[in-house]
């Protein structure tokens, strides 16, 4: 058996179309109050590009390719890690009156 994935032109267009619809619908349900975390969260999601960077770097055979591949992984990893860190931080701050906690800012020393 072969598990290699092969996506040709039209299949790719179908995938793109369905993904775009799904994204549009899912994001359309996010309330305006969460638009900033949503933006950094979707920012995090396209950090998956780091996987492509790793693939490109592992298949690099010249110094130039290695250099650019390294750059790709570096940036992709930054995108993913940074996006995750800020999104989680922001979402942790949203509280209702019932659970209203102290302000989340750091105490001044």
């Amino acid at each position, binding site marked *: 058996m072969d598990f290699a994935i092969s996506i040709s032109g039209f299949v790719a267009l179908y995938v793109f179309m369905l993904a775009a619809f799904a994204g549009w619908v899912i994001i359309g349900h996010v309330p305006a109050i*969460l638009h900033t975390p949503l933006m950094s969260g979707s920012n995090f999601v396209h950090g998956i590009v780091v*996987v*492509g960077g790793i693939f490109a770097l592992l298949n690099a055979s010249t110094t130039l390719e290695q250099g650019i591949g390294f750059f790709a992984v*570096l940036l992709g990893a930054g995108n993913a890690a940074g996006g995750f860190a800020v999104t989680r931080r*922001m979402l942790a701050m949203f509280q209702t009156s019932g659970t209203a906690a102290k302000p989340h800012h750091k105490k001044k020393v």
Partner: protein
Amino acid sequence: MFTMIPQLAIGIADLAAAFLFMYGLQRMSSPATAPSGIFVAGIGMAAAVLASFLYAFDVSAAAQPHLLVNISLALIALVLGGGAAWWSGKTVAMTAMPQMVALYNGMGGGAAGAIAAVELFGAKAQGSTQLVVTLLGALIGAVSLSGSLIAWAKLDGVITKPLRVKGQQYFNMAVLLVLLAVGGYIVFVTTRGSDPLIAMPSLLAVFFGLALIFGVLMTLPIGGADMPVVISIYNAFTGLAVGLEGFVLQNPALMIAGMVVGAAGMLLTLLMAKAMNRSVANVLFTNFGDAPKQKQSAIKGSLKPVDAGDAGIFMRYAKEVIIVPGYGLAVAQGQQKLYEFVKLLQAAGVVVKFAIHPVAGRMPGQMDVLLAEAGVPYDLIFQLDDINDEFANADVALVIGANDVVNPAARNDKSSPIFGMPILNADKAKKVYVVKRGQGKGYAGIVNALFYGDNCDMVYGDAQAVLVKMIEAVRGLGTAAAA
């Protein structure tokens, strides 16, 4: 046979990642479930990244001798890039969030562009479709990288003024056309197998260089208050670039994640543009806020300054107060003091609500996050459509650091540049207090009729200082009553 197990593992991990991304974003439809949403998306990401090292079992023959070096490089890049971004994400101030998101977004675009560069310089793309898609992804990714960096510089205050030159739009258009021509030429000579006029690597370098320059040129003339649209659009661009490179690498997880984000970014872009009553093209290609161009209808009335303490005491005896915070509040770092004041009002039995305009702040929803950071419960925070009818019942509308978004000219003055923009109806409240640094105009450069209304008083001063005075006045009242 040897590559079967790694392929299967990568396939499963990527499928899981794609599912968890969608599920995670779907859980963002409520503040209560959103934290678990980003958590599951994070698990998907971790799984996909770990599995991607299994590509090592299936590398091309040419890369085989370099495998050990390449794996080490990948690990170093992961730790360096991920570590630095993680640390900065943990420590950045909430007010600096827009530039941080712009920066991370630019990194994603740069990564997509770099993947395309590896494919192109290594001449790995097979067939004209692949080549065109690779180039397109490279273009969008590179524009997103340099454009986001300029957006970051503007938001961070490195670049303070929109840079505008006469005929700039024509020049930008020319650069874009040359860029597309170079791309077309690359496709032409590669598919024909003929020799290009200049060596292919140089040609590719020109292509990438022009794309980066175009991103800079496109973003430089755009003003600060238009940044919500710009950040959203570059988010969409990076998503699109990632999706396209996903196709080139035959990785459906990248295709799906990229496209979902592309659609999400587009939706937010349109929402933001709608909230400004302008088209996306208008934001990107016209120099807004330069100077008032039209003659405005004459405004009757006068500005009536009042003491901050008096205003605070007036609100203490009101039944309902609606607060309209704007970017000026964030600039003055007054959110904590504002919530302190609100808690005093609540303790005195005043109903307090926050009314947020969609474009309050420098990215969509930024004001909501800043209030949440100060501890304001989200059930007190209302969006434009949900609260606009309630201003008529409110005793006081307290406008802090906001201007254009409460200008009634948007409703009733056809000659105003912001006519038709959805605004918060603060002027409908029985009493309006406007906290403002000085008599300056808002981003649109127009006079605000609200300030001249009979029901409106001005409280001049830095938002934080004004709030401190209000708090002191109300507190003083409390102790006087107790004594």
